[in-house]
C-alpha cells in the first residue's frame, strides 16, 4: 500500500519507503537483532561507535556483518556523549568507519539519569558538524525554539523526544511536537519515548515524518513480533494522517440512515 501511495520519506535528498527507523541496541544477540530489523522493515538503522575490545574474541561477528551497509542506510549515533567535543569526535570516527558516509545522528546528553539532551552542547556540535560537511539528524528536546535553531544551523532532520530515552512513556507533549512540525521545513521525527505500537501510530497520525525507536522493540517480550507491530503502526498512522481524520463531535451521529426504520408509529 505504501508503494501505491508513492509517499517516500526524504532525508538529505535520499528517498526511503519505510518511515520507521530503528536502533540496534539491547538485543539478546546479533541474530535477534537481524530478525527484528528485518521484521521492522526499516531502511535506516542506527549503530553506536565504541572502542574495539582489544584481544578479546577476534572472531566475534561484527554488527555490520549482520546489518550490512549495502542493504541498510547505517546511521551512526553519538549516544553516550555528554560534550560537543566528544560528539564531534565520534562523528568523525564514524565517517571514517563508514568510508565517508556522512549521515549521522547527533545526540549530546545532559545526565545519566534522564539522558535528556544537553541542548547547549547539541547546538555547538551541530554547528561544527554541519560546517565539516556532515548531514546531521539531531536528537533534541521538544523545545520549539531549540528545534528552530537546529534547523537554521543546517540539520537535515529534527528529532524531538516523545519522552525520555528508554522510558516507553509515549508522546508526553504532543502540542510542542505540533509546533515544531508547523515551523520546520526539514523532516521532524519523534525519537525516543515510544513504548508500544499505538505510540508510534499517534506520532504518525500527528504528521511526524517518521519515528526512530530502539527499546520499544528490543525490550518487548517478543522483539521480532513487536518489530512487525511497529511496522504496521507506522504505516497505519501515516495512512490515517494522509486520509485526514473525521472531525471530533460533541454528540452522536448515527451511521445508519434513519429512514425506513421498523418501528411502531
Amino acid at each position, binding site marked *: 500500500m505504501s508503494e501505491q501511495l508513492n509517499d517516500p520519506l526524504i532525508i538529505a535528498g535520499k528517498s526511503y519507503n519505510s518511515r520507521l527507523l530503528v*536502533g*540496534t*541496541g*539491547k*538485543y539478546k544477540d546479533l541474530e535477534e*537483532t537481524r530478525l527484528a530489523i528485518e521484521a521492522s522493515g526499516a531502511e535506516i538503522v*542506527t*549503530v*553506536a*561507535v*565504541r*572502542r*574495539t575490545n*582489544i*584481544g578479546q574474541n*577476534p572472531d566475534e561477528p*561484527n*554488527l*555490520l556483518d549482520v546489518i550490512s551497509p549495502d542493504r541498510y542506510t*547505517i546511521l*551512526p*549515533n553519538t*549516544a553516550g556523549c555528554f560534550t560537543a567535543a566528544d560528539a564531534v*569526535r565520534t562523528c*568523525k*570516527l*564514524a*565517517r*571514517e*568507519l563508514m568510508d565517508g558516509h556522512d549521515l549521522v545522528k547527533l545526540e549530546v546528553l545532559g545526565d545519566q539519569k534522564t539522558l535528556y539532551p544537553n541542548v547547549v552542547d547539541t547546538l555547538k556540535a551541530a554547528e561544527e558538524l554541519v560546517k565539516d560537511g556532515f548531514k546531521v539528524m539531531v536528537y533534541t528536546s521538544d523545545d520549539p525554539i531549540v528545534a528552530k535553531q537546529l534547523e537554521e544551523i543546517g540539520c537535515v532532520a529534527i528529532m524531538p523526544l516523545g519522552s525520555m*530515552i*528508554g522510558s516507553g512513556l509515549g508522546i508526553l507533549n504532543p502540542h510542542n511536537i505540533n509546533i515544531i512540525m508547523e515551523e520546520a521545513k526539514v523532516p521532524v521525527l519523534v525519537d*525516543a519515548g515510544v513504548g508500544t505500537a499505538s505510540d508510534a501510530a499517534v506520532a504518525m497520525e500527528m504528521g511526524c515524518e517518521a519515528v*526512530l*525507536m*530502539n*527499546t520499544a522493540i528490543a525490550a518487548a517480550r517478543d522483539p521480532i513480533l513487536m518489530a512487525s507491530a511497529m511496522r504496521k503502526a507506522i504505516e497505519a498512522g501515516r495512512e490515517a494522517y494522509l486520509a485526514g481524520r473525521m472531525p471530533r463531535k460533541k454528540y452522536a451521529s448515527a451511521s445508519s440512515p434513519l429512514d425506513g426504520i421498523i418501528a411502531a408509529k
Partner: protein
Amino acid sequence: MQIELNGDQMQVAEGLTLSGLITQMGLTGKRIAIELNLEIIPRSQHETTLLQESDKVEIVHAIGGG
C-alpha cells in the same frame, strides 16, 4: 616504546606502523576506524603512519546502539 591504546598502556616495538598495530591486535580486515592523538588517520594512511613514543591511539568499531 610505550603507547596508549584505547585507554590502556602498552609496549610496542620501535618503528611500528598503524597497519602493524592492526595486525598485531588481530584486527586485519575488520571494519574499524583509527584516531591517533585526536586526529583521524584514514585507512589509506595506516601503512605509512609510524607510531611514536606516548602516542594515544583509539580503535573503534560499530556496535548495537539506539
